């Protein structure tokens, strides 16, 4: 768990308040959150252009006002069962390490304030998810929100985008 701890302290130092804002979204039965500061915008699903020989979770690229943005399907990325895109399907455009990328989620929920004290280190999820992609878990009333370290999800180990072709 040492990794999560260090990431916490980094975030802690980055924001002066003792609570961080997260954008939450749903994926299957779970509620996830990403640091709102990473989020550039949210847009409805639009068809993408397929990239040859891309990893399966990279569904294609999109024109975002002149910028070519790769789009990652989080369900595929997490090995969840695939569903048809519908009117709730959204693309969350994030900026990670100066790259603009989009992630496809089932639906976007809300922006929540989560005090750092409410965040607990995530338990190991077994093989469905690499624990290092998680910043932690937070309880919001009835719901448990899984906080993603979106940098590691999109670029870190095991990084499909960083691998050479």
């Amino acid at each position, binding site marked *: 768990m040492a990794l999560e701890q260090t990431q916490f302290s980094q975030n802690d130092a980055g924001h002066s308040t003792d609570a961080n804002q997260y954008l939450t979204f749903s994926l299957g039965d779970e509620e996830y959150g990403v640091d709102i500061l990473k989020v550039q915008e949210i847009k409805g699903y639009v*068809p993408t252009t397929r*990239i*040859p020989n891309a990893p399966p979770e990279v569904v294609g690229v999109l024109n975002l006002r002149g*910028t*070519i943005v790769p789009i990652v399907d989080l369900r595929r990325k997490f090995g969840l069962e695939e569903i048809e895109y519908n009117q709730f399907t959204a693309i969350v455009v994030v900026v990670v390490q100066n790259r*603009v990328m989009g992630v496809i989620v089932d639906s976007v929920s809300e922006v929540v304030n989560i005090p750092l004290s409410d965040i607990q280190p995530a338990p190991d999820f077994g093989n469905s998810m690499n624990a290092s992609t998680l910043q932690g878990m937070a309880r919001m009333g009835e719901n448990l929100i899984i906080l993603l370290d979106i940098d590691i999800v999109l670029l870190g180990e095991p990084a499909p985008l*960083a691998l050479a072709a």
Partner: protein
Amino acid sequence: MNLDMTMFHQAFFEEAGDLLADLEGLLLRLEEDPGDLELLNTIFRCAHSIKGGSATFGFTDIAHFTHGLETLLDKVRNGEIKIDRSLSQVLFESLDQMKALLSVARGESASAPDSSALSARIEAAILGQPAIVAAQPTLPKQKAAEEEGWGVWSLAHTYRLYFAPGPDILRQGGDPLLLLGQLGKVSDILSIVCDDSRLPALADMDPEACYLSWEVELRSDKTSEEILEIFEFVADDSEIRLEVTSETRSPAAAAPAAPMEAAPPAAEPVAEVPAAEPTPAMAPPAALPVEAAAKAAPPAEAQTLRVATDKVDKLINLVGELVINQSMLNEVVQDFSMAKLPRLIEAVAEMERASRELQERVMAVRMLPIKHAFGRFPRLVRDLAATVGKKIELKTSGEDTELDKGMIESIADPLTHLVRNSIDHGLETPEERRAAGKPEQGTVSLHALHEGGSIAVEVSDDGRGLSRERILKKAIERGWVTENDTPSDETLYNFIFMPGFSTAPAVTDLSGRGVGMDIVKQGVQALGGSITLTSTPGVGTTFRIRLPLTMAILEGLSLTVGNETYILPLTSIVESIQPAAGDVRKIAGRTEIALVRGEVLPVVRLYQVFGSSPKVTDPTQGLLVIVENDNHKVALLVDELIGQSQVVIKSLETNYRKVRGIAGATIMGDGRVALILDVPGLVRDTLSESAALAAAA
């Protein structure tokens, strides 16, 4: 000084770079016409501006060095020193030294060659004037240094300076504080009194006006002219009086053997480190602020762009048009009825025209005349001519042809190589030329011209031409052709672009250092261009580079593979054919080839490369697009060709990564992304695959 000067550094670097480029041209002209006084004046002004700028922005080593040069130029200008070959050489070397120092200041290179030897030569040239030596035979060097004030500390004057800036000085961008700080750098300020008696009551005060004046007592080894130089740019509006109150010989004069002791008390380390040598050597502490400055201002060649005002004006006009257009459209679409349709169509057409023009103009902002790339050649040719002992005239034409800024920077190196090549290999020695009945002076020409949607740049010489026999011999040696082959001129000449090829019988100072024509070709191709050559024995050789106008726009052919649309760069397409049955065959059941008019070409099924689901798998139902790169052709199997269009190239790598077979992306009319095919990559991959298959078979 609290003012952060680093923000102005970029502007200074650009200006100094321009001035040095001007200076180079001027020195070349001076060499031809040493008596031209106007030319000398311009050269002096150039050097003076560089010195002033570098001193202002804290680049003391450039300022010190240039100061010596300026003194020399001043003497030349006044006719005290005559220009001869060796002096001219000193001037050129000084120019190089200033360039090197500037590049250190920019943070582009870690260190510049030591200036001291060159400074000593400049000093010697200044002292070479007999009048001075005769007047002060015992202390010639010291006398000169005294006059210059930058050398040995010998005389310290005490001055009283009265400085009353005009009320508008702040509004005009002047800053008294900055000037006083500057003063502190060249002298010891003994006392400074600010006179605020003219300050009005707060209610009457104009915050942008200056009401203050100063009386400064200072001690310096500088002449009063040199001190007043600080105030050069505000002199017109300000009241400045400088009087010498006393003149004291510093210990330097008394004990010239120990100049280190000559440092006046509390000397500032930056500007006042006494040089141990009479020459203005670079003092180590002086290097520190420069280093710091270099760190603060990153080497940012591409960060700024100086654009002609008229180009910007046109852009502003166009944007204005677009805004008006937009409100017209708004008006039309509100309560739209079919009766308004003609007006809508008209408004949309107008909008289209304006936006198209805007695109062109925005592109033009990045365009610079190619003379920026040609500028380095007169000097290069001059130096090379001396090195190889040939007489060479450089002719340039079409310098105003505009090219993308990035392209200009990238094309300079391949052009340099071609010019060197022409001088070294192309042109004959004067004796050979005389024997061949040609004028002794050879000609190298640089010529740029517009050619349809692209730019052609030609480098030609009137030398001996390429030797067919020698190339053929080499090609046979390398196994590219057999003894019995008689390749066409075109094929044969193209061999010189092969890696490791050199026709030079011996390695010379200029060529044969491992950088060959293959690098030139690669450089040109990296810009999306192509290079060809023609040569006639005894008459000369011409290299012709064709370049797209900008790197951002590409003429492409859109095609479909399955449901996907791809763009194929037009420059790489040879032709497209619909193969008949039997034209496409398999070798050993694996490698697929197409027979096109007797030529055997490997077939690339694009849907296989890209893993897409095709509509067409039978070549006779689809199309073979034959593309060429590096003299290798392959046939791409595609479903359908759609049409030709200009596309804006977007990077995939910015947010994603490099994709095999894909050079980039673009945005189609409907807003969707289409990928641009990487023809060189596809050709390379195909060839290496066939080679691997052949090896395995």
